[in-house]
């Protein structure tokens, strides 16, 4: 078949090729396809903002409309990445702003976004439609005002778990009366109260609004008005759920909730008083997603609520749910796919919080679609993990966080090796795993042997020796991200498996036993990796090569050394003349 499709025809075909994977394949077919594909790719995903330069991305995909970027490593969520490390959005916004003003969407995760940045977005991109910031910081409510006032086609403004300098609630009042395109608004992480009348007017002129997530400052009373203005909502994050309302107000609010015929997702519910929980009953049967991680609801009320949520697929809740509450989930929520249980910090003795491994076992037995678990728990057993593994071989994500470091199986006092062995052996499609508790070399041997599809692995306070790291790096074929803290892993395994690091996105190690000398050697041997030593104490550079480093972050990159490193980050590019130690590399 002699096929020569003109580029116009290719463009039409490619307009139906959407997924990143397919677009990457298509661009490798031949040079003319590469050319047409790159000019027509609209959505670009850069999973490590330092793996490629903004200029290179803009050059390759000049037609880009939507850019998704990730900055800091995951352990930044646990405050392990010092302030000032990096992950700046500015160079990206600047690069796009100059030459590619057609940008419509920016989705950033764990990045530093300044007000200047937000102002630049507002000024540069006339068709800007969506700003979604997750776990970002560096901006104030003034920056939000700049976006609100200028982006006349805005559809999405979402601030998820961001740290924002809160200068007051005025920013919301900057949305012009002519803005009627809003589909999604999430300001749940802000503290200050917005002007209620402006919020009501905004909601009432937004007929396409599907998702509204309020902050804690929006009272229960105000919620009623807002719900009446937006009965079409699919996602709702309430504000504080604790005003004392009179009977009439309660009944009006109940009516407003029952009008939410499309509601699928519910969150917020700060300070929820038990007597107001029945207000939610009318929406429960339709819910597929329920986030109670800010709601201090006690077990009996949780049982009442959850037993009405037969369509629930995603549940985030605190350990106040107890085993009994999880039993209710098991019997009522048969569609459950994802369960996250967070620590409430409640003192066990005081409030008699009784959540153990049994809760998760019960859910694993009863919910056939359960594929993603995050479970914070005081203690666990091997037997429980073996049962869970047998019940749910379809698990894709298993993150167990036994909160006491080095905690053994609380019934047998054995390490939790056998439990994790069962998980990796049985769950053949497991992609993400977090381990905790007392673990020996054996656990990592099992993970290395069986975790063939594992892409992300998190380890804390585990291990006997360097051998464990070797098992992981040599055995886990699909490993993409590895993050380790407080484990006795050191130089040998790292240097022996240096080549592996080019097949992974990143490796993080903190409070381990990696020496400065090994970091230098690794840097010299693997020039396509950025080997960053984070050294806030300033001990490393002046100490001997054998001194252990605080933290290292290693990632593959096409961009070479980054130009925005703070003084507490060392890479070999800062001091290329430093001699190599006597450590040998294979």
């Amino acid at each position: 078949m002699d096929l020569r499709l003109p580029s116009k025809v290719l463009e039409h075909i490619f307009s139906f090729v959407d997924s990143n994977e397919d677009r990457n394949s298509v661009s490798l077919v031949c040079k003319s396809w590469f050319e047409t594909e790159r000019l027509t790719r609209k959505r670009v995903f850069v999973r490590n903002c330092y793996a490629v330069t903004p200029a290179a991305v803009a050059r390759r995909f000049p037609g880009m409309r939507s850019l998704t970027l990730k900055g800091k490593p995951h352990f930044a969520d646990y405050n392990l990445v010092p302030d000032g490390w990096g992950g700046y959005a500015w160079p990206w916004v600047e690069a796009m702003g100059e030459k590619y003003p057609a940008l419509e969407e920016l989705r950033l995760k764990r990045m530093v976004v300044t007000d200047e940045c937000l102002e630049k977005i507002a000024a540069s991109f006339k068709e800007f439609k969506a700003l979604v910031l997750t776990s970002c910081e560096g901006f104030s409510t003034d920056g939000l005002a700049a976006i609100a006032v200028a982006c006349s086609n805005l559809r999405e403004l979402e601030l998820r778990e961001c740290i924002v300098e809160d200068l007051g609630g005025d920013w919301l009042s900057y949305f012009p009366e002519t803005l009627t395109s809003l589909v999604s608004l999430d300001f749940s992480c802000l503290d200050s109260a917005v002007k209620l009348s402006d919020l009501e007017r905004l909601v009432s002129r937004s007929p396409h609004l599907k998702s509204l997530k309020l902050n804690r400052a929006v009272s229960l009373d105000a919620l009623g008005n807002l719900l009446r203005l937006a009965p079409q909502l699919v996602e709702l994050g309430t504000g504080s759920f604790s005003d004392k309302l009179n009977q009439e107000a309660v009944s009006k609010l109940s009516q407003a909730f029952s009008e939410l015929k499309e509601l699928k997702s519910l969150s917020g519910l700060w300070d929820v008083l038990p007597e107001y929980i029945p207000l939610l009953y009318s929406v429960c049967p339709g819910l597929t997603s329920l986030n109670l991680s800010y709601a201090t609801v006690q077990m009996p009320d949780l049982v009442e609520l959850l037993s009405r949520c037969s369509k629930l697929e995603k549940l985030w809740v605190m350990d106040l749910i107890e085993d009994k509450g999880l039993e209710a989930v098991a019997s009522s929520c048969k569609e459950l796919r994802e369960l996250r249980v967070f620590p409430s910090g409640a003192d066990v003795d005081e409030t008699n919080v009784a959540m153990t491994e049994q809760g998760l076992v019960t859910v694993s037995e009863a919910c056939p679609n359960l594929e993603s678990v995050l479970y914070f728990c005081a203690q666990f057993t091997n037997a429980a993990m073996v049962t869970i593994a047998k019940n749910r071989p379809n698990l894709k994500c298993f993150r167990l966080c036994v909160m006491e470091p080095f905690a053994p199986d609380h019934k047998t006092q054995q390490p939790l090796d056998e439990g994790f062995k069962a998980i990796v052996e049985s769950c053949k499609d497991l992609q993400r795993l977090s381990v905790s508790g007392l673990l020996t070399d054996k656990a990592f041997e099992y993970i290395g042997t069986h975790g063939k599809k594992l892409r992300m692995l998190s380890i804390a306070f585990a291990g006997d020796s360097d051998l464990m790291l070797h098992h992981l790096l040599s055995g886990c074929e699909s490993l993409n991200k590895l993050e380790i803290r407080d484990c006795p892993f050191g130089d040998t395994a790292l240097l022996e498996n240096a080549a592996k690091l080019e097949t992974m996105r990143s490796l993080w190690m903190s409070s381990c036993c990696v020496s400065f000398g090994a970091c230098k050697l690794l840097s010299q041997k693997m020039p396509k990796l950025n080997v960053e030593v984070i050294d806030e104490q300033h001990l490393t550079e002046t100490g001997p090569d054998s001194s252990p480093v605080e933290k290292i972050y290693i990632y593959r990159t096409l961009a070479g050394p980054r130009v925005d490193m703070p003084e507490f980050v060392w890479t070999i590019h800062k001091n290329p003349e430093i001699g190599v130690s006597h450590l040998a590399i294979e």
Partner: protein
Amino acid sequence: MDQNLVDLTEKLSLSSNKIVLTSSDGDSFEIHEAVARKSQTIAEMLDAGCTGTIPLHNVTGKILDRVIDYCITHVKEDGPFEEEEEAEEKEAKKKWDAEFVKVDLETIFELILAANYLNIKGLIGLTSQAVADHIKDKTPEDVREIFGIENDFTPEEEEAVRNEHAWAFEDSK
């Protein structure tokens, strides 16, 4: 279908002008002007004063026949005859379209080229989607084989692009 068309043109008391299209290999097709106007290219020719026979040098008879079928089926859309369609009718058309593209890839390519040349919006979309469906979830090697395309990257060039995809534009989160 034809009777409906006659009724339609009578109803709207428009001229029941017939246009003759000839293919590259000498086949002739006489069709109603409304049907011919589904092609933006032909519509422009007609507006510019062309009458009678319109020769289409780039389309074979076999393909033109199918294209005309498409135009007849979809004549009621986006034009002077646009009508509100019943859900049943919409469903029937969807099924018809699905069957229409159940042909070998070579024919789909010829159709997409014809649709592009004749500038028939709906047909361009339908055939593009059909081709795209053959591309989804395939490796570059598979796609080359299916489409009969030669790889003109050097090994180094290909490696560089693959690396860029894996390191910079990774698929998964």
